[in-house]
C-alpha cells in the first residue's frame, strides 16, 4: 500500500466513524442483532424424497440426470462419453480410478502447467462434487482432489458430475453452507450455463459447459 493509499484508508475509516456517530456504543452485538426466524429447510421429506427433489430440480434447469448404483457407474460414464462422441476427457487427480474403468477415451490429467487453450481442446470432464442442494437443484464443487481445479469444469463443453446419494445431498442452502470450508474456492452450479440477457428470458448455453450431466450414484449398498 502506498502512503497515498494508506491515507485513503484512514480517511475512509474516519468518514465511516463520523457517519455512524448516531449509533449507540452499547448496541446489540451481531448474534442478537440478526434474528434468524427463517427455516433451515423447506418442508419435511424423507431422505429418498430429498434425493428425488434434487433430481427434479436439476432437470428443471436442464441438467440431464442419471441414476445408478456404484457397480453400474463405470458403464454409465462410459456410455455418456460415447454418446457425446468425446475423444478426450479431463480427469481430476483424485478421481476414483474405477469410474473410468469402462471407457477408453483419452484421459487428460488436470495439470497446473497446461494452458486454458489446451483445455479448450478437451471434449468432456468427469468430476465428483462436495455437496448437492435438493431445493435449488445445485451441485457444489470445492476443488477437492476428486473435483480438480475450477477451470477443468468450465472450459470443456460437457461436464459429467457424480453425486453420491444420499450422503452428499442436503435439502437446503443453509445446510450446504455448513458443509463447506470457506477457505476453499467453491463453485455452485445449477444447470448448464444460461443467460437471461435477451428480453429477460432464460436461454441455456453461453460460456460454461452447455451440457451438464449429473449422475446420482446410490452409495448406500456399497462399501464407501
Amino acid at each position, binding site marked *: 500500500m502506498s502512503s497515498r493509499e494508506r491515507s485513503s484508508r484512514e480517511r475512509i475509516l474516519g468518514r465511516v466513524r463520523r457517519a455512524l456517530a448516531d449509533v449507540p456504543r452499547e448496541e446489540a452485538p451481531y448474534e442478537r442483532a*440478526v434474528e434468524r426466524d427463517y427455516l433451515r429447510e423447506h418442508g419435511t421429506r424423507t431422505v429418498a424424497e430429498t434425493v428425488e427433489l434434487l433430481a427434479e430440480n436439476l432437470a428443471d434447469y436442464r441438467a440431464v440426470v442419471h441414476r445408478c448404483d456404484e457397480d453400474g457407474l463405470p458403464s454409465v460414464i462410459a456410455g455418456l462419453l460415447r454418446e457425446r462422441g468425446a475423444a478426450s476427457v479431463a480427469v481430476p487427480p483424485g478421481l476414483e480410478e474405477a469410474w473410468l474403468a469402462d471407457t477408453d477415451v483419452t484421459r487428460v490429467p488436470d495439470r497446473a502447467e497446461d494452458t486454458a487453450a489446451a483445455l479448450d481442446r478437451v471434449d468432456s470432464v468427469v468430476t465428483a462434487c462436495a455437496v448437492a442442494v435438493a431445493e435449488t437443484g445445485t451441485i457444489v464443487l470445492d476443488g477437492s482432489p476428486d473435483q480438480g481445479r475450477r477451470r477443468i469444469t468450465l472450459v470443456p463443453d460437457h461436464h459429467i458430475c457424480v453425486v453420491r446419494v444420499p450422503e452428499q445431498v442436503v435439502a437446503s442452502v443453509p445446510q450446504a453452507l455448513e458443509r463447506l470450508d470457506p477457505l476453499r474456492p467453491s463453485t*455452485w452450479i445449477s444447470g448448464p450455463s*444460461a443467460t437471461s440477457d435477451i428480453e429477460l428470458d432464460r436461454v441455456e448455453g453461453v460460456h460454461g459447459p452447455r451440457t451438464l450431466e449429473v449422475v446420482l450414484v446410490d452409495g448406500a449398498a456399497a462399501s464407501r
Partner: protein
Amino acid sequence: MSGTFVGMPAFPEAAREAVRDTTLRGNLRHATHTIRAKRAKAVAEVEDWAELREAGKRIKDHTLRHLDRYLEQVEAAVTAAGGVVHWAADAEEANRIVTDLVKATGESEVVKVKSMATQEIGLNEALEAAGVRAYETDLAELIVQLGKDRPSHILVPAIHRNRGEIREIFTREMSEWGRPAPEGLTDTPAELAEAARLHLREKFLRAKVGVSGANFVVAETGTLVVVESEGNGRMCLTLPETLISVVGIEKIVPTWRDLEVFLQTLPRSSTAERMNPYTSTWTGTTDGDGPRVFHLVLLDNGRTDTLADEVGRQALRCIRCSACLNVCPVYERAGGHAYGSVYPGPIGAILSPQLRGTDSEIDASLPYASSLCGACYEVCPVAIDIPEVLVHLRERVVQGGPATRAGNRVVLRPAKGHAAERAAMRAAQWAFTRPGVLRAGQRMASRTRRFHPRTLPGPGRAWSAGRDLPRVPAEPFRDWWQRTRGGKDGAAE
C-alpha cells in the same frame, strides 16, 4: 448515443423521449412483465420469504452500523489469505489504483465480469485513456459495449434492446472487436448466445488480467462471492493470472453463514430462479488453482456520505437484484437511460442523488421520478423503504439542510426552481390551518364554476394536456352538511 451520463437533462425531459419511443416501450414492457410473473412465482415457492427478507435487512443494517470494524476485519482476512487490499476514497483514486495494477502486469487488455462498481467509476474509460482495452464479457454488457450504448438496467443492461436489434449490433460490430459474428446469424436467442460464446472465447483463453466486482464480501473469512449466469464470471475469476476486484464498502456481510440468506433471496429476486447457474466464492489465492495474484479495491465514492444520513443509509443495503426496476411502472415507461446513472429505476432514484449529491439537474429531479406507489418496497429482498427515502430526498432538494459531501458536513441550500411551489405550499398550509379561509376559497370556486376553463395555463397545463379537469360542484360538502344538518333535513338533496 454517448457512453457517458454527463450533462443529462432532468428526468421528466429524458423520460418524455422514452415514452414516445414505441419500440423501447414495447421492449421494456415485454421484458419487465415476463420477469415480474416469474419472480412472484419463485418467491411464492418459499414460505419463509418474509423471515428471509427481515434477516437480510438486519444483517445488512448491523454490518453498516459497525462498518469500520468489518472493513478492518475484511482487510485482515483478505491479507491473511494472500490478497492485497487497496482503499479508494473516490472514483478517480479507484481508477488510478486499477490502472496502475494493470500497467504493472505489462498487459494491455483485461477481461471484465459485469460489475456495477466499475461502471459507476467509469473504469473502462479510464483504462482506455491509459491504453488498456477492457472487454466486457457479460452478454448484455457486450451488447452495450459493441453498440456504443449505455446500460439501462442493473441486471440486464441491454434490456432496452430486442433480439432483432441485438442481431444487428453483433453483425455490424463484432468484427471491430475480434471474431466476427457467424454468417447468417439469426435473431433466435440461442444463436445470439452462441455468437457471444465464440466471440469471447479467444479473449478468455488469452487473458492475463481479470477485473470483477463482488456481490458479497465475508468479513470473518475474507471470502468474495460473485453470482452470475453465463460462466463469463468464472472465466474471468479463474483463468487470468491476476484478478482485481473493485468492491463497494457496503458489500460486506459479517459471516459465511450470512450467505444462506442472500443466496436464497438474490437469485429469486433478480432472475427469478431458485438458484442462478453459477456462484463462485474465493478467499485470497489458492495454490495452483486460479489467479496467483489477487487485489481487492475497497471503494467509497459517496458511500460514507450516504451512510451519514440516518434515513438514506438504508439504500446501502441494496444487493443489486433489480426487482424494484422490474416492478416499477415508471421505469417500465421511462426506461433506464432517463435516470442518467448506471443505477436506474427506483433504487437509482435514491442511490444516485446520495452518491453524487443533488447539485445537478438530473440528480435533483430523480427523487421525483416516482408516483410513490410502493411496489418497489414490496418486492425489495432487503426491505429498503424506497418511497420513504424518495420523500426524504425531496425534502433535501426543496428545503436543503444538513448533509455530508466527500466526508464533510455541509448545509445545503434549497434547490433553485422550486420557489413558486414553495410559495404555493406555504399558502396552502396557511389556508389549511384556517378552516374559514378554506371554506371561502371553496365557495369562490363553486360560484365561479361556470367560468372555469377546461384546460389550465402555466404548470397546470401538465395536467390538462392529457386529462380533463373535474367539474367543481355547486357547493362543497361542508356547505351541504351545514345546510341540511348532515342530511337530516332532506337526505337526498
